[in-house]
């Protein structure tokens, strides 16, 4: 009887504790302090919703746009840091996010870019749409240009005996098909399209950086620059890390004192279970005590399949 009583007391203690944790979780009032949101753009910039599984969460730009909308709708968010660590990606996806950044700025929010290891090509497209750009002096950036990858596997197909027959509605319906050589007419069609997208890219950079389009074209031959070079050329405003960018954003937004940081994005359960050890304690604490202001960022793997249109 004594043993039974002890176990019942322990069970009650556990139940009361569970109730207390649940009550504490639901009773937490949201903070109304002025915040700086951090939105991560990592990996290849691809349109769509991305893929999410237990092992990795590959972010499509739909997620980034959703986060931009959340930051826009949150009245306590005064400024947004766009933390870019991307070699570029799809032109359309970059443009889509770039336009959303412009809309965010039009709503009165300050948007500041912090470049990580690399913020090139499509990554720079996004940066050019923001109020101010911070880069590390060794950041790889620039790569302003467009290319269409095209592989001709015609000879290989012949060797392995594959012949694909197509019934086409028009002569160019299978343009960029890998099983035949591109005609000179088709090459001209693609070149015109590349030039069109390139002009749009140059216009975005010229508008964002307040530079003359001719001046931008001189820099935009597809080459990459270090953060240091980019600053000298006017492609970057300041040299500094993400915390410098946060300070800069706080100053631009007129936030007095230390700003509250709100990170957007989801951390995969796999990372949560096996991620960096220094994050584990604080994350666990945040989860248990309902103090997490955010979920963490998503990322796309480097071997992610790429679209036809590459901003480079």
């Amino acid at each position, binding site marked *: 009887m004594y043993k039974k009583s002890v176990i019942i007391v322990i069970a009650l203690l*556990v139940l009361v504790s569970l109730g207390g944790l649940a009550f504490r*979780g639901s009773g937490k009032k949201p903070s109304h302090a002025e915040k700086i949101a951090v939105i991560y753009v990592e990996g290849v910039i691809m349109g769509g919703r991305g893929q999410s599984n237990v092992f990795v969460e590959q972010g499509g730009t739909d997620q980034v746009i959703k986060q931009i909308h959340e930051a826009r709708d949150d009245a306590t968010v005064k400024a947004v840091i766009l933390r870019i660590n991307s070699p570029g990606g799809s032109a359309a996806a970059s443009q889509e996010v770039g336009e959303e950044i412009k809309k965010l700025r039009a709503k009165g929010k300050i948007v500041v870019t912090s470049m990580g290891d690399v913020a090139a090509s499509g990554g720079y497209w996004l940066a050019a749409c923001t109020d101010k750009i911070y880069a590390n002096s060794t950041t790889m950036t620039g790569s302003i240009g467009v290319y269409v990858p095209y592989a001709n596997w015609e000879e290989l197909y012949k060797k392995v005996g594959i012949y694909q027959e197509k019934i086409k509605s028009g002569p160019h319906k299978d343009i960029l098909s890998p099983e035949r050589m591109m005609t000179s007419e088709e090459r001209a069609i693609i070149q015109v399209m590349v030039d069109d997208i390139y002009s749009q890219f140059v216009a975005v950079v010229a508008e964002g950086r307040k530079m003359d389009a001719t001046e931008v074209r001189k820099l935009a031959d597809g080459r990459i620059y270090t953060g240091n070079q980019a600053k000298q050329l006017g492609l970057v405003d300041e040299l500094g890390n993400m915390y410098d960018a946060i300070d800069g954003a706080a100053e631009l937004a007129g936030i007095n004192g230390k700003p509250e940081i709100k990170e957007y994005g989801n951390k995969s359960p796999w990372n949560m279970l096996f991620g960096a050890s220094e994050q584990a304690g604080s994350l666990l*604490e945040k989860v248990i005590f309902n103090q997490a202001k955010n979920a963490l960022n998503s990322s796309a793997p480097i071997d992610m399949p790429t679209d036809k249109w590459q901003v480079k």
Partner: protein
Amino acid sequence: MGSLFEMLYDILFQPAIGMKNIAQRKNVGQAIVVFLLSILIPIWALYFGLKATGMSTMINVMIVLKIFGSLVMWIMGAAIWHLIAEFFGGHGTAVGLFTALGFAHAPRIFIVPLWALIAVMPASSKTMLMTISVLAVMLWSLSLDVVAIKEVHQLSASKAVLVMITPLLVVGILCIIGFTFIGSSLTHMPMWL
């Protein structure tokens, strides 16, 4: 049900007697109940936190991973430790060890009241206290694993500890051998910045 309460009490407060009784009775059903409660109750506490922080999409995955992972560890642990214990001259049964190891999960339920207590502590000490509480519960649970091996297989305490750490030692030795071979092939690679 009364015997389950008594066994739980014994496991928590007089583990040697408790493990001996469990090994004799081999009540797998009760072990599964204790295992599930010991896994699900802390997950329930995590659930409140995850749901409140908007990480609702990962709740189901976390729960499935935790239950499945713990179940696999329980079954594999029982099988491997039983095999090693027999090599060391143990006389117990696999079912007895499996049952005892299931009951050894019981201390995990204490993580919930501990977290509830830490929740009202000063913010500066929360991370440290949480780490200590998790480590304490893990150590308690591991010590019960040792007692389970000792009592089920009638081994000495030192042998029971040796049985428990043998899989880790084997993995460690294999890693050292592997890294030695890999390291020797990497020594001539250029340095990357």
